[in-house]
């Protein structure tokens, strides 16, 4: 019999405590609000309360970007990708370190390395990319990177790159090169894995 009454008492007291908590949260809404009014307010929002300065981010994951003038065609990023979304085709250029203006090829990267290969195809399929960042570590010229964050000086952050057509998400970074002009150079081509 006493269990009956203690059940009722316990029920009423716990229910009232629960109601008190939601009341408190309701009253404190101005202070506790966690909504980000997109698209007027976008992330990154520096005053977001994580107790941490945004500038000190280690690394960021967003859209991949390639500075094609710096790419030496070593294909290390293609081998590092776990889902094989990078496809590169290179051709040996007969003139190492020389500019070839008729196909828009610069002979030297911004780090001073002389390029021996012409990159004729550099496609990254962002629909297959798993954003693991493994391709950025092996690049010797640091020309493939994810935009924004610590790389903001190279390219501002870009995470809103949705398209209506799937084909538009295959980013083609190589410069448009004519087949005829390319065959002037050594015909031996390094093929990408299918």
């Amino acid at each position, binding site marked *: 019999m006493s269990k009956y009454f203690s059940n*009722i008492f316990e029920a009423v007291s716990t*229910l009232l405590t*629960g*109601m008190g*908590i*939601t*009341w408190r*949260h*309701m009253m404190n*809404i101005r202070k*506790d*609000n*966690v*909504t980000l*009014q997109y698209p*007027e307010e976008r992330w990154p929002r520096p005053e977001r309360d994580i107790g941490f300065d945004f500038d000190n981010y280690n690394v960021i994951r967003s859209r991949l970007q390639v500075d094609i003038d710096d790419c030496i065609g070593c294909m290390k990023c293609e081998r590092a990708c776990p889902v094989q979304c990078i496809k590169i085709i290179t051709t040996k250029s007969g003139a190492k370190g020389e500019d070839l203006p008729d196909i828009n090829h610069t002979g030297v990267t911004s780090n001073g390395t002389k390029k021996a290969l012409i990159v004729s195809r550099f496609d990254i399929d962002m629909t297959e990319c798993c954003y693991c960042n493994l391709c950025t570590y092996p690049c010797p010229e640091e020309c493939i990177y994810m935009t924004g964050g610590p790389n903001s000086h190279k390219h501002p952050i870009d995470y809103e790159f949705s398209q209506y057509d799937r084909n538009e998400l295959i980013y083609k970074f190589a410069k448009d090169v004519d087949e005829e002009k390319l065959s002037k150079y050594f015909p031996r081509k390094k093929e990408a894995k299918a």
Partner: protein
Amino acid sequence: MTVDQLINWLPFGTDWPVITFLTAVIICALPVFLFIAVYALVAIYGEVKISSFMADKVGPMGQGVGLHAGKWGLLQPVADALKLILKEDIIPSAADKKLFVMAPFVVFIGAFISFAALPFSQNTIIADMNIGIFYILAVGSLSVIGIILAGWSSNNKWSLYGGMRSVAQIVSYEIPAGLSIISIIMLTGTLSMQGINEFQQGTIWGILPNWIIFNNPFSFIAFFIFFISGVAECNRTPFDIPEAESELVAGAFTEYSGMRYAFFFLSEYAEMFVVSGVSVTAFLGGWNSPISGFFNSPGWGVFWFMGKTLSLVFVMIWFRWTFPRLRVDQLMSICWKVFLPFSLLNIFGVGIWILIAG
């Protein structure tokens, strides 16, 4: 402005009694329908915003009229209503067509006609019957038929299941509700709504308003029993097993879409208002002001009644967003094993109180 006054006022009263009666009734019913529509919009907006505030977010917001959802999201309920109206009206081919179409109307009628006896102020009541509160309790059970029709005619195993559970719940919870009302009727001696309100005029010991809830400890408990039974009758959390979203399927109303579903929705909110209105009238003083002697005019009466009722609707919304839901058998056991004995005890206690305290 009751129907009687209107009939007396209309010029062709004695010649065509039927038409006079119908005209008077329609003139009285239209404002109620408009009131329910506007109140439902306000209630939907309130529910969305209050639930968001309780969850540390701000809900629908806009940066100006016409953008997104209006300033502070005020256009959100309008958008909801428009969406429901514009939706395609699907009737399953294997459903019983006549009953399917009839169900939302029956449920709505049950909630709608109870408004006839709600006393908004001293002279704003549509029908001041001398059996007012009994009428509301009786008519509120009409929605049960509508839910059974909805569950059965959908020709869906799970709608039937949900409908049966809902009906069992509503019918069981009417008993403690009715018994709690009996205990206050013993105090007031009258079933009429205006009579109950007039009983609660004045003060106890000069400071406390003479509301029935403060009258004696038994009616204090009766208020809570009545209010919680009312929440159960509206199928709101924590008693919303019949229409719960995360319980397998959506219950009795699965097959309804568009405007028909809007009617069920509307009648749920209307029922919430009726239940709150009756608890305010019966226990919290109705249109009497809490500071007796001041703010007593009929205009202020509407303000007090609406204010108290809307605060009880707010409490119902508060319940929904704080508590988990009860399982069907636990719900029933609470009704029959806890509420029923306590309401019987209340009747007994109030009777003894009247005997002793004169």
